[in-house]
């Protein structure tokens, strides 16, 4: 079958619409990936620049988190359901306000409380 005008229109529409695979944060196939965590980030708010200035200024923890589990808020909060405990936020924090503590020593942390 020779392609009709409609076929060509459809092909063009597809080629101009399906451009790049993008996704908003969501529950993945692996479920709550926070269960993989061996170390947990906790925030010492007294050191945090965002808390100290009361402004959304630094937020490097939010910017660098590869899993989008740190909120851009005052104070920044961790989503422990999905935080895998990589520690990038703690490394990037210029104020050393984030500490990685062993899950064994951490207090029980149900839900999405965030902070310390």
């Amino acid at each position: 079958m020779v392609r009709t005008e409609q076929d060509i229109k459809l092909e063009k529409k597809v080629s101009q619409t399906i451009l790049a695979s993008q996704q908003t944060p969501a529950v993945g196939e692996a479920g709550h990936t926070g269960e993989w965590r061996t170390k947990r980030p906790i925030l010492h708010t007294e050191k945090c620049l965002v808390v100290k200035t009361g402004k959304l200024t630094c937020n490097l923890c939010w910017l660098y988190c590869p899993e989008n589990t740190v909120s851009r808020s005052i104070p920044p909060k961790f989503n422990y359901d999905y935080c895998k405990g990589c520690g990038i936020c703690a490394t990037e924090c210029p104020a050393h306000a984030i500490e990685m503590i062993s899950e064994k020593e951490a207090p029980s942390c149900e839900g999405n409380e965030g902070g310390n």
Partner: protein
Amino acid sequence: MPERKVLTGNHAAAYACKSVGVEVVAAYPITPQSPVVEKISEFVESGELPNTQFVTVESEQSAISAVVAASQMGARVFTASSANGLAYMYEILCWAAGSRLPLVMCIATRALGAPWSVWTDHQDAFSVRDVGFIQQFVESNQEAYDTVLMSYRVAEDPRVYLPAFVSYDGYILSHTMMSVQIEDDDKVREFLPPLKPHIHLTDFENVHSVNPVTPPGLTVRPEGNTPGYYEFRYSMQKAHEYAIEVIEEVAKEFETKFGRAYGNGIYKPYKADDAEVLIFAVGSVASESRGVVDTLRDEGIKIGLISLKLYRPFPIQHLRKAFNKAKLVVVFDRDVGYGMEGILAAELKSALYAADHRPIIRGFIVGLGGRDITADQLINGVKKAIEEQDNREVQLDTHVDFIGLQLNELGFKKEEI
């Protein structure tokens, strides 16, 4: 007022980046590409490119990663490389194309190691054939400047959104001075409107991830990640197919605005109208062939040249028309598809297989690793092809002819075997 300067190919490409106002450049030096980014870094340092960020990186893989990331933030970006550096970029080139990012990069073509060679051939440019970039070859420094301008226009066209390569021969263009007209920034801006990116990673209220794992099946999710990998790749193929008409349209508009044309933007014919024999080549081999055509015309041979400018998408319909009268096509490849034949020869055969008129196609390999290609060698190749064009045994033979080998001097002599 437009300015006329005497520039190398590398510097012509750098001036093109200045004219289009690239916003982020990241590159790692490799011979013969280095001067293009050195010049851009000079522009940034001197304040001539006040809105450009030059990112210094530790490798080619980082260079292309940096510009891919910047492109996803909505910036107009540029990088360049050659040979082994380009090979090191390979993985991320696929990510650029798979995300349909409108980045433009130059390749100063160079032979791939091993063994080390810094001189020109086209193996590097052809080795990235299937990553999904638009690919173009140029013959002069002015064409390099103009093609970079046109490439941004094509790549950023919402009907296309594909990254593009502009390839020019290492040394033969990259380090050779020619007169180049640099256009007014205002006029270039009229030709090339601001980029409208389709990925906005700077939209912090609406956080997205790009290119998550996409399963083989169609996964319809409200949060995105639809459709499937297969549909993305189908879309990319269709974008390539329909990019040809946009490329032609942009070339026409460029001619109207700036008064320069390179054939139809797809290929450049030379004395091809009444030709019975046509040479098919790209880049330096095509420019060398122009003189060969003149010489052979003087000898009474009706010969012409089709210099291919657009290699990907491969302009099958255009080539069927371009070759619809020729009896013989002589293809000079400055590259080899190892274990097969010259890449251009193989692809031309494939393109003309279903054509109404199928000329005899004879391929030769020339000038690998920068081995000088002389006019005499090309003339002898054409004459050999003419002489043997009706020889069925030659047609059926599958060996590949290399022109300009010096095996004799290495002690390999046919008469002594």
